C-alpha cells in the first residue's frame, strides 16, 4: 500500500508551531501582532442561508457557516492546500480506488461525544439517501463512491454505499473508479460528519441553535432568520486552544450598497464591493479594498443544438464573435474590479492547470477584430446579410452592463445585430436548460479545485452542458483525465479544441472584490475557492 500523506509544508508548520505554544495573552503566536480584545468577526451575507445541515446546505453562504460548525476529513489552508481536519492522514491502495482515512483520537462533538468514523459513515449514507433527498446527493456520485449512483436512483439500499468504519478511528472508502483528486473533495460540506443521535432525536429541527451539536471550531448560538446568525467558539473542539476568533456574526443584507454603507459606518468587517466602485474605494481606502482571483468563470454559450440558429453551427461565426469581444473593456471599464480577462474556459487560478497558449490571447485586439471580420465574411455574413440573434441573461444590473457592451462591440465591429433579452433567474435557468435560447450567459464556480469541475460542462452528456456542444475527442480526453495521474496535458488539449471550435465565449474570470477591515488578519486571499475558516482568522488591535 502506497502511503500518501499529502500534508503541505504550510499545514505542517502551522499545526506544529501553534500546537507548541499556547497563545500568549494579546499577541499572535506566530506573527507577534497585538491582538484586539474583542475577537468578533462580522461579515455580510447576501441572502438567508438555506440550511446549516451539512448534507442539505446548497448555497455558498450556508456552506461558509457549515465549514465553521463542522469539520470534514480534510481542511484547506490559506493557499487552498489540503491539511488534516478530522482525519490526520490517509492512505490509498495501488489501484487508487480504496482510500483509508485515519481519524484523530482527540476530536469531540460539542456535547463531548468522540468524533468517530461511524459519524462519517452515517453522514455519507444520509447524503445519498433518497429519503433525505439531498440537493447535493450528486456530489457523492461525482466522488465516485461505490454504489452512490444506484442508491440515489433507489436501486440499492443505502447500506450498500462503499464506505465503512473499520474501527472508531479508521474510515474506509471504496470508489467505483480511481479518482486522483478524491481527498480534495472531502473539504466539501456535503462530506462533513453528522451527529446521528441528535438528528434522530430532533428530526428536521436538529439544526436549530438550541438543538444543534457540531464538531467544528464553532457552535451555532443564535439564528434570527433573514437577520443574523451567530456562531461562537466550541470549547470541545480539539484545536480550541489555537483558535483566536471568539465569535462570528453573519448579517443578512440583501442590498450591496447598503452593505457598503454599513461597512463604511464601521458595522461590518467584510463586504462585497459593488461593480464599478473598486477603483474609487481603492483610492479612498487603499488598505481595505482588496481584489484577488477566484475559481469562477463568466461566459456566453452558443446553442449549437437543433433548436439553435443555423449560423451558430458554423465555428467561424462563433469564433468571429468571440474574437470581437474586447475583454479589456469589460474588465477595466465595466466591472473595474481587477477581474482577469478570459480566453480559456477554466480559470488560470485552477490548481495544476496550465493555461494553454491559445492563439487569441497573444493577438492584439486590432488583429482579433480583423480576423473576426474575415471569418464572418467567410461564413457569408456581411453588410448585405447581417447576422442577427438574441442573447439572454438573467436580470441583474451587472449582467446587463456586460451584455450591452458585448452587443455594442459586435454591432460596431461586425455589423451584427444582437438583441438583448433578460429573464428572471428561475425562468432563465429553465429556458437555458431546455435550449430555448440562441446565445445565453453562463457562469460557473468550481465545486473543487481541479480543471475538470469546469471542463466537464462541455462534455456532451453533462447535465450542465446547456449549449449541447458535442465533440467526441473532448469527451474522450475528459474521460481519460478522470483516472489519469497527470491530467494537465489532457486539459490543455481540451482547452485548445475549445479555443478552436468556440462553443462558448469566455469573457472574464471572477475576482473576489471586497472591503476588508485592515484589522482582520490572515484572510486567505490565495485560496481561490475562498474556502475560509474563521478559526484561522484573527483581529489585530488597532
Amino acid at each position, binding site marked *: 500500500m502506497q502511503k500518501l500523506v499529502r500534508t503541505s509544508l504550510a499545514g505542517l508548520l502551522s499545526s506544529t508551531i501553534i500546537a507548541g505554544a499556547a497563545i500568549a495573552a494579546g499577541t499572535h503566536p506566530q506573527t507577534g501582532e497585538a491582538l484586539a480584545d474583542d475577537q468578533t468577526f462580522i461579515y455580510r451575507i447576501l*441572502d*438567508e442561508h*438555506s*440550511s446549516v*445541515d451539512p448534507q*442539505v446546505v*446548497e448555497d455558498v453562504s450556508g456552506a461558509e457557516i457549515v465549514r465553521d460548525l463542522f469539520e470534514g476529513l480534510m481542511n484547506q489552508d490559506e493557499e487552498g492546500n489540503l491539511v488534516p481536519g478530522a482525519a490526520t492522514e490517509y492512505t490509498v491502495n495501488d489501484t487508487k480506488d480504496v482510500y483509508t482515512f485515519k481519524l484523530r483520537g482527540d476530536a469531540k462533538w460539542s456535547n463531548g461525544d468522540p468524533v468517530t468514523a461511524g459519524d462519517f459513515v452515517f453522514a455519507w449514507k444520509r447524503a445519498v439517501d*433518497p*429519503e433525505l*433527498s*439531498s*440537493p447535493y*446527493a*450528486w456530489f457523492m*456520485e461525482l466522488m465516485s463512491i461505490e454504489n452512490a449512483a444506484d442508491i*440515489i*436512483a*433507489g436501486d440499492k439500499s443505502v447500506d450498500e454505499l462503499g464506505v465503512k468504519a473499520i474501527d472508531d478511528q479508521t474510515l474506509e472508502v471504496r470508489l467505483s473508479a480511481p479518482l486522483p483528486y478524491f481527498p480534495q473533495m472531502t473539504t466539501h460540506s456535503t462530506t462533513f460528519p453528522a451527529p446521528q443521535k441528535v438528528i434522530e432525536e430532533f428530526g*428536521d*429541527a*436538529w*439544526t*436549530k441553535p438550541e438543538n444543534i451539536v457540531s464538531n467544528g471550531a464553532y457552535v451555532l448560538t443564535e439564528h*434570527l*432568520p*433573514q*437577520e*443574523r446568525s451567530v456562531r461562537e467558539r466550541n470549547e470541545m473542539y480539539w484545536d480550541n486552544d489555537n483558535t483566536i476568533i471568539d465569535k462570528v456574526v453573519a*448579517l*443578512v*443584507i*440583501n*442590498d450591496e*450598497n*447598503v452593505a457598503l*454603507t*454599513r461597512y*463604511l*459606518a*464601521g*458595522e461590518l468587517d467584510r463586504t462585497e464591493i459593488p461593480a464599478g466602485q473598486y477603483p474609487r474605494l481603492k483610492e479612498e481606502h487603499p488598505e481595505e479594498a482588496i481584489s484577488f482571483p477566484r475559481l469562477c468563470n463568466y461566459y456566453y454559450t452558443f446553442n449549437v443544438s437543433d433548436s439553435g440558429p443555423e449560423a451558430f453551427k458554423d465555428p467561424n461565426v462563433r469564433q468571429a464573435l468571440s474574437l470581437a469581444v474586447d475583454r479589456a473593456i469589460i474588465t477595466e471599464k465595466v466591472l473595474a474590479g481587477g477581474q482577469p480577462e478570459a480566453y480559456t474556459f477554466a480559470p488560470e487560478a485552477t490548481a495544476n492547470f496550465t493555461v494553454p497558449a491559445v492563439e487569441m490571447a497573444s493577438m492584439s485586439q486590432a488583429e482579433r477584430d480583423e480576423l473576426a471580420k474575415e471569418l464572418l465574411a467567410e461564413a457569408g455574413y456581411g453588410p448585405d446579410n447581417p447576422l442577427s440573434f438574441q442573447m439572454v441573461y438573467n436580470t441583474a444590473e451587472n449582467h446587463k452592463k456586460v451584455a450591452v457592451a458585448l452587443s455594442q462591440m459586435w454591432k460596431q465591429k461586425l455589423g451584427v445585430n444582437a438583441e438583448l433579452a433578460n429573464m*428572471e*433567474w*428561475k*425562468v432563465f*435557468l*429553465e*429556458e437555458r*436548460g431546455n435550449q430555448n435560447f440562441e446565445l445565453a450567459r453562463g457562469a*460557473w464556480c468550481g465545486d473543487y479545485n481541479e480543471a475538470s469541475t469546469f471542463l466537464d460542462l462541455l462534455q456532451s452528456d453533462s*447535465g*450542465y452542458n446547456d449549449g449541447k456542444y458535442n465533440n467526441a475527442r473532448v469527451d474522450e480526453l475528459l474521460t481519460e483525465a478522470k483516472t489519469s495521474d497527470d491530467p494537465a496535458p489532457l486539459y490543455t488539449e481540451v482547452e485548445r479544441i475549445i479555443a478552436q471550435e468556440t462553443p462558448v465565449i469566455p469573457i472574464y474570470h471572477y475576482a473576489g472584490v471586497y472591503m476588508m477591515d485592515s484589522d482582520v488578519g490572515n484572510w486567505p486571499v490565495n485560496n481561490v475557492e475562498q474556502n475560509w475558516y474563521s478559526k484561522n482568522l484573527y483581529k489585530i488591535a488597532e
Partner: protein
Amino acid sequence: MLAYSLRRLLVAIPTILLLIVACFFLMHFAPGGPFTSERPLPPQVLANIEARYGLDQPLWKQLWDYLYNIVVHFDFGPSFKFKDRDVNDIIAQGFPISLTYGTLSFLLATSVGVSLGIAAAIKHNSWIDYFAVGLGIAAQALPNFIMGPILILTFTLWLGWLPGGGWNGGQWQYLIMPVIALATSYMGSIARITRSSMLEVLNSNFIRTARAKGLPTRTVIWRHALKPTLLPVVSYLGPVFVYVLTGSVFVDIYFSTGGLGQAYVGSALSRDYAVLLGVTILYGALTVVVNLLTDLAYAWFDPKIRY
C-alpha cells in the same frame, strides 16, 4: 352591526379561497420550480425531492392536500428553501416584526398627517398653511425607496447615530429609520386629504351656524368639524394600514429587519410555493379584516351611515 360583520366575514371565505386557487395556479404556471438551480439536479434526485414534498402529485391533488392541511391542522406546509422551518415558523417570526414597525409607521403618518392638515386648514393661506402644504408635498414625493438611502446616509454614515439595519429584538434605535422611511409618503397624502376635507367642512352651513351661535373656535373645530373632516381620511387609512404592513417589502430588504416582506419577495423568486401562498393568504385575510373595520368606523364618524 354584528349581523353585518358576520355576513361580511362569511363572504370573505370564498374570497380568500378564490385568492388561494388563483395564486396556486399562477405560481405553478410560472416557469421554473423550487428545485430549479444552476446545478440541475440529476433526474433521480429531483424525483426524490419532489416525492418528498408531494410535488409529483397532480395539481388538483396538491391543492386539495394544501387546503385540507390548512383547515384541519392549520398547517401551511413546509418551506422548500429553508429546510428546518415551515411556513408557520416563517410567519410567526416575520409577521410580528412587520406588524410592529408597520403599526408605528401608521400611527406616525396618521398623527402627524392629520395634525398638519388641520393646522393648514385652520390657518388657511398663512405661513403655517404653506409650510404644511410644502412639507406634505415633499413627503409625498419621497417614497420609501428614496427615504431609505437618504436616512441611512445621514444617520448611519455621516452622523453615526443609528445602526444601518437589523432588528435586534425591536430596540428603538433600530426602529427609527424603518418607521420614518415607511411613514413619510403616507404622511404627506394624509395631510393633503385632511386639509382639503377640513377646508370644505369649514365652509359648510352647519359650521357657519355653530359659529353664528357664538361657539368658541376650539369647540367648533373639535366638536363639529373634526368628525366629518375625518371621513374621507378614514376611507384612505384602511388601505394605508394594509399597505404599510404589506408594502413594507422595500423597507424589509433595505434595513434587513427580518420582516415578512423579505420572505414574500424571496419566496416568489425562489418558487417557495408554500411560503408564497401562506404570506398571500395572510395578507388577503388582513385586507378583508381591515376593510371591514374601515367600514364599521364610517358608522361612528357619520351618523347617517347605518348597517
